[in-house]
């Protein structure tokens, strides 16, 4: 599928003639379609492409097709810069999407600002500029939210724990993950928890056991990890191999649903903002059927983030109307409300000052060994985004 994805991207680049662009909404994405972190971003780009293809097949928006141009930056800032320049100057995109590491943000945003084109972070982490007071040109549809995720997770631990909480943290040695675990470390004592350790684990690590040994020896009965999936799950697996019996909470990245089923660990919880496919919503059925028809490589449960980005793009372009311009699009996005049909706990609502969302909703899942299925442990809990 990735071959097709990149082939489609290449074809789109070659065929995106100026004349055609004038008759279509042209949008461009720079993303980590290859490279070490591609497992997080490539499925989202694939889902977005699928969503746009379906939209075009249904007649597009206001009778105009969407011309989606995908560019691979391999999570390298230099390539992301070149992609942004090309998409903005050559393809004249209305909207620039980023699905890559945060290290690519600065050059992409700088190029977009020069061109006056809005940037949508879709599956990449939301930068602080989308939170109130938001930058007029930066928007984010991605599920995870720094500080709010930790608040939700710590609140869940507090209400779930049956004995005094001795908590350990596991972060990847990248700025965002470390900052989030630092934040959680500061918050935990205020909730009556004792912080016993924090492991900042470099990527990549051949053996997670030395880090897990420290957390176990520190006496943690809960461990919270907010990091790329590989760090979260390998720390857990290393802890379990050391015969650690505590509870483990991690962020529900796109891999979470498949991994809960693989690990079958009843004391492993994932906190997330996207509804898992086990909830069997009509929209899940729609995604599954679309993915099956398109013969996507990635598991369907990894497509939610990209699908939501597609919903946001559709809503934004509908609100912009035709003819479209980056200015009109940015104005439309500043007051956008997107119904995610249950994929999130509520709509993605942007205001002039808040380009993240006005309310963030969380659900908690784990594996139910008795039923042999994923179990929803806690239903949507809302947090107002100030």
């Amino acid at each position, binding site marked *: *599928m*990735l*071959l097709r994805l*990149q082939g489609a991207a290449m074809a789109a680049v070659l065929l995106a003639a100026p004349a055609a662009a004038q008759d279509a909404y042209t949008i461009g994405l720079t993303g980590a*379609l*290859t*490279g*070490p*972190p*591609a*497992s997080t*971003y*490539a*499925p989202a780009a694939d889902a977005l492409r699928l969503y746009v293809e379906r939209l075009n097949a249904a007649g597009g928006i206001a009778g105009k097709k969407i011309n989606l141009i995908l560019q691979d930056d391999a999570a390298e800032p230099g390539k992301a810069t070149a992609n942004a320049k090309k998409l903005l100057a050559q393809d004249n995109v209305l909207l620039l999407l980023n699905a890559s590491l945060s290290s690519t943000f600065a050059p992409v945003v700088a190029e977009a600002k020069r061109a006056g084109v809005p940037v949508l972070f879709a599956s990449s982490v939301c930068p602080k500029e989308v939170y109130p007071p938001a930058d007029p040109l930066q928007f984010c549809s991605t599920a995870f939210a720094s500080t709010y995720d930790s608040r939700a997770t710590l609140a869940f631990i507090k209400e779930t724990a049956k004995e005094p909480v001795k908590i350990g943290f596991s972060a990847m*040695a990248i700025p965002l993950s470390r900052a989030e675990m630092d934040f959680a470390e500061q918050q935990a004592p205020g909730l009556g928890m004792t912080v016993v350790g924090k*492991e*900042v*684990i*470099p*990527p*990549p*690590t*051949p*053996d*997670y*056991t*030395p*880090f897990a*040994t*420290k957390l176990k*020896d520190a006496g943690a009965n809960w461990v919270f990890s907010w990091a790329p*999936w*590989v760090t979260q799950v*390998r720390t857990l*697996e290393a802890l*379990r*191999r*050391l*015969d650690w019996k505590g509870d483990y909470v991690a962020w529900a990245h796109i*891999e979470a649903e498949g991994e809960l089923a*693989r690990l079958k660990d009843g004391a492993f919880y994932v906190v997330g903002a996207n509804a898992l496919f086990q909830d069997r919503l009509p929209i899940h059925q729609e995604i599954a059927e679309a993915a099956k028809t398109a013969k996507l*490589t*990635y*598991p369907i449960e*990894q497509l939610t983030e990209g699908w939501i980005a597609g919903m946001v793009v559709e809503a934004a372009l509908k609100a912009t109307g035709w003819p479209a311009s980056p200015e009109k699009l940015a104005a439309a996005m500043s007051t956008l409300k997107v119904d995610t049909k249950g994929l999130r706990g509520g709509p993605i609502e942007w205001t002039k000052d808040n380009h993240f969302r006005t309310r963030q909703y969380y659900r908690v899942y784990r594996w139910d060994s008795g039923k042999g299925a994923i179990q929803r442990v806690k239903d949507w809990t809302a947090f107002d985004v100030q």
Partner: protein
Amino acid sequence: MQLAVNIVVLTAIYALIACGYVLIYRVSRVLNLAHGELLMLSAYLLLWTASLFAGHAIAAIAAALGLSLVVGAMVYLFLLRKLTGEMALAAVLTTVALGVLLRGVTVLLWSAQQQYPAVPLGLSNWAIALPGGARISLWAGLLVVTTLAVYASLFAFLRLGRWGMRMRAAGQNPLLAAQRGINLHAIYALAWSLSTLTGALAGVLIALDSGLGQTMAIIGLKAFPAALVGGLDSLAGALLGSAIVASAEVILIHHVDPLLSEVIPFLVLIVVLMLRPWGLLGTREELDRV
């Protein structure tokens, strides 16, 4: 006790990977900077053979290792053979390009998502209790045993085997070896095959232990300082270097700061290179020639 087990496991990982660097360098004076990617490719090959031999784990693993032997030979025959006798730098740069190519190819063929070859093979990874309350995972334990077996076999092969002696001869003086009738291309192809095989063993066992993704290529590079510390042309040095780097890493993770694990291999490397630029057990003469 767990600390000691952690050191042994990390030593085994680094040593099994590092011996691949040493084998090629010792014979052909080429630094194979695609070793990490070849290791990763072998692990992905296991994913492929696992789908071919579903439920037959031994057959799948054996097929993946066999394929890695072929891949190693093909890399030499189709890519590096023409560079024999040219500047070593050209060959090194070729391996860099090969690494980039392999990273792209693996994503295209197997996608970027995390993979777990143990799942289709129906293999578990239970923990084994050791004396002193320590524990080790099954695959980590097998990795330690495999590393010991690989080193013992390589020592025996290079000391006692006919082809091993030819490899040593080609490494020491290729011109003289060729004049004595040794087929240098066959020797170099064999070195690449064996190097890729040892890397494949590491890649396959790591993938069975903790899964497989694009970051595995970088794990291959993490063993490089261990090979340099021990001396790039010394197998015993690779073992010693791995033990030193792994010990320093695990002890500092446990007693000082986990973040040091990223820099400590290079700190050890700098210290060793300042004292013995050719590595702890490397040959001074050989390095001077480079």
